[in-house]
């Protein structure tokens, strides 16, 4: 479904490229951990996939189409099939849990009726039924991240991109969040998680792509984190 072909990304700071000559394929329905130390290029890969940034060289295909050549409306359509989950949750403080999730559908112009149907389902999936009226400031880190996940899945995306989703969450909640991702993946959604959480990576035994200094040093099915990094 996704294919990186010799992708290189350099930022204009004169340093070495953030990712260099990356080639990899991701099939529909896969669960992938991107691992590696800080600055290895995990976040750059996520940003490239969302086309938040453009590669300096190489081609990036989604369903056999080069996403770097997307028109504005194609890019929008593409991004609407991706659910993003962030380390810092990025919830709107002045909106309730329900409103934060509904917001994802409102910006897509969905009808109030559809929003009323889908939001409770998404909140139920992440175990937040009953917390609809709470504001982000009243939530724990784990709960806030589950709102972030509900917001990502409410629009039924093809891909979930998560950048350090357990970075601000305690151990127990991290486990629950990974379980949620596993459940979402079992439903057929491709899940790509950039993480430092070696314990969870080892526990889940999914495909692991390890990066170091912008290069893939390991791509292993049912792999572990490998604490060497």
């Amino acid at each position, binding site marked *: 479904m996704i294919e990186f072909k010799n992708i290189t990304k350099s930022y204009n700071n004169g340093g070495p490229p953030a990712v260099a000559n990356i080639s990899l394929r991701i099939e529909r329905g896969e669960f992938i951990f991107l691992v590696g130390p800080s600055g290895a290029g995990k976040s750059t890969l996520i940003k490239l996939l969302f086309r938040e940034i453009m590669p300096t060289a190489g081609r990036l295909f989604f369903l056999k189409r080069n996403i770097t050549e997307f028109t504005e409306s194609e890019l*929008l359509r593409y991004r609407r099939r991706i659910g993003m989950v*962030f380390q810092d949750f990025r919830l709107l403080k002045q909106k309730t849990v329900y409103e934060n999730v509904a*917001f994802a559908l*409102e910006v897509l*112009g969905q009808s*109030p009726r559809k929003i009323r149907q889908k939001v409770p389902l998404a909140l139920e999936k992440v175990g937040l039924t009953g917390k609809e009226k709470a504001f982000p400031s009243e939530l724990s880190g784990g709960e806030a991240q589950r709102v972030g996940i509900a917001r990502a899945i409410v629009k039924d995306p093809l891909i979930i991109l998560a950048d350090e989703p357990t970075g601000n969450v305690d151990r127990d909640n991290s486990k629950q969040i990974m379980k949620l991702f596993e459940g979402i993946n079992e439903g057929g959604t491709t899940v790509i998680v950039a993480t430092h959480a070696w314990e969870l990576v080892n526990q889940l035994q999914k495909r692991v792509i390890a990066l170091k200094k912008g290069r893939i040093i390991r791509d292993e099915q049912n792999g572990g984190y490998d604490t060497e990094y």
Partner: protein
Amino acid sequence: MEVTTLNINSLRYCLRQSFISIYRNIWLVLVTAGIIAVSLSIFGGFLLIAINTGQIISNVESNIEIAVFLHNDANVKEIQFKLDNLKGVNNYTFVPKEQGLEDFSKLMNNRIPLEGLSGENNPLPDLFRVRATRAELVPELAREIQGYPGVETVEYGEKLIGMLNRVTSWLNTVFLVMSTLLALGAMFLIITTIRISVLSRQEEIGIMKYLGASNSFIRFPFILEGMVIGWIGTLSATLVLGAVYYQLVVSLQHEVLAFFIQPVTDIDILLPIFIGLLVMGTLLGGIGSMVSIHRHLQV
């Protein structure tokens, strides 16, 4: 699903967002709208002055007549004969001094007592009012008539027209400079207000981008907000301007001045001006927003 255009749900959402944003920044919005109102009132005021001056000038021009003042001992019949045979004269009327006094009295709404001014004491001369077939013949005819025996002096509003023309051109220049400055000022205000609005919603905009919101969806509420601010400002301006102008027209009707200055009261002329102002203010708001968004909103 079409993603580049806004559907009805999006429009509803954008409208709500605009009004929420206006509500949140209500003081800023009111101050901006107020300053726009003042700017456009001045602009509209100048416009009304220009239109009225235009009307006065065209009135004067279409009524150009040569006033031929006669000596007391002038031979009226002879002059009449000469005028009958003068090329370029359309028509003329003779106004004897008694008639002149009466006309003057009427002009002054009978406020000037005429007793003691009749007969020998009448200070006014007899006169002919001569109209030319074409306005440009007036100076030539005036020169010709001036040469007739018994003619004391000839006037045809030459100085008045010259002065009015100078005043109009001066007014037009001031009007142009002022309106450009005021429009720029109002625009700058809108740009700043929308910028503050954009900055206060920066986080939300960032999240909207990640959620796949279209550019038009992100931009539209701000454009709408600017238009609403512009509209509120101009609406206040037109209401104030309309009220002041109405008062002026009403009070002028009771003044002696009304004979000389007849203000424009034709609704066919005034309505487009007020509607035009309203449209202009609203557009100004929209354009200001677009400039602000272009500069401060990276989507």
